[in-house]
């Protein structure tokens, strides 16, 4: 029960309350750039979920086995090399370089795989894949996982990391699809000339962010309700 509540909390928090786009402002570039039509926006969202899950899994593996302080693999190598066993072995200085490398190469591999084996899928979101390397949302998910793995009171497992990735990806998809829907309606409106394009898009995003602020506090309510159920 505890595990389920925990996972549900992470999911709701990543998807709605602390929406990646509207609360943390990551992934703004595609949010502004690819939100002209609903179907392309949805395709972009799916591609982001896909890559985010893969990159998060890999970065969880790298962080928990190599990059965190006293991670097993460097400690093992250190002991084989005959180092002093009391030394704190910490490779976390390398983490940014390794994350960006993992993201860039996983995007490359996913693109090659999809093009070769899933031509239908490639047609629908393959064109967005190269763009995702520079999508801050993916790196942000990796950094969140790193933060929660380095914190000894949390020590996230793989299921929690995956939940964050899926929740964050779904949150991104919701935000970008809503935005695309609003923007296609905006084409019919009489917007002041100077605000056309980016200006009005930012203002719409601001109003959406305000709406999403309404979810604040929802996590605590659900947590209380669930813990009440568990006690009964």
């Amino acid at each position: 029960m505890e595990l389920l509540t925990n996972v549900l909390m992470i999911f709701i928090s990543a998807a709605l309350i602390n929406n990646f786009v509207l609360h943390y402002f990551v992934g703004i570039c595609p949010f502004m750039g690819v939100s002209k039509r609903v179907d392309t926006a949805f395709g972009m969202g799916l591609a982001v979920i896909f890559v985010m899950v893969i990159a998060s899994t890999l970065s969880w593996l790298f962080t928990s086995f190599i990059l965190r302080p006293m991670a097993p693999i460097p400690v093992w190598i250190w002991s084989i090399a005959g180092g002093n066993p009391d030394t704190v072995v910490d490779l976390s200085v390398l983490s940014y370089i390794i994350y960006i490398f993992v993201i860039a190469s996983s995007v490359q591999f996913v693109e090659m795989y999809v093009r070769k084996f899933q031509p239908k899928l490639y047609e629908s979101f393959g064109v967005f894949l190269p763009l995702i390397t520079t999508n801050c949302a993916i790196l942000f998910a990796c950094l969140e996982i790193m933060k929660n793995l380095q914190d000894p009171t949390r020590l996230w497992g793989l299921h929690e990391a995956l939940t964050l990735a899926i929740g964050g990806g779904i949150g991104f998809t919701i935000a970008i699809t809503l935005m695309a829907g609003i923007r296609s309606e905006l084409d019919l409106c009489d917007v002041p000339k100077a605000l056309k394009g980016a200006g009005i898009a930012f203002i719409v995003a601001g109003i959406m962010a305000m709406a999403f602020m309404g979810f604040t506090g929802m996590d605590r309510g659900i947590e209380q309700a669930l813990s009440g159920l568990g006690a009964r």
Partner: protein
Amino acid sequence: MADQPTASERFIQGILPENPVYRQLLGLCPTLAVTNGMKPAMTMVGATAFVLIMSNILVSLIRGLLKPHLRILVFTLTIATFVTIADRFLGAYMYEMSKELGPYVPLIIVNCLIISRAEICASKQSLGTAVADAAGMSLGFGLALASVATVREILGAGTWFGINVLGSGWPDWGIMVLPPGAFLVLGLLVGGANWFGDRRKRLAVTVGE
């Protein structure tokens, strides 16, 4: 505009005519995320300028060795190295500020502004031009962040750089320091910049006639 702008032209261009935020809509994550006050915004500008200038220097020096298909990967790894340096520096000497900026310092790696400068300018130009370009762009980025942060901090908290400007009677507009305020202010400022640019162009046309 000439085919190959000189170093000083590039420097000037980065500041206003091709301002990274208002004209090219690049580097929007930090523009929205850390502009709830002047102090975090200026720290962010410092870190970004350091990374932009250093990576432009390095990319410009190794431009003869770049292979086309590995180009972007080399750029990202270069940038990630300098971001690690900046992040460690902030953590060591400005601990509070680095806690406040949180994940946005490592997110400089994926700031489109830096990659686009490496791609468009540094990988093709000599060292001096690349440095001038990076400095101009950093200045433009700094101005943009400062403008957003000024509006948000003054309206949201009545202060500027932590100094009280609007007096104690000012009712803080809480929304300004929260996420929606960032979007609204940037939207209106982009609109204002467009309006101003259009008007100047129109005036120039009438004067020309």
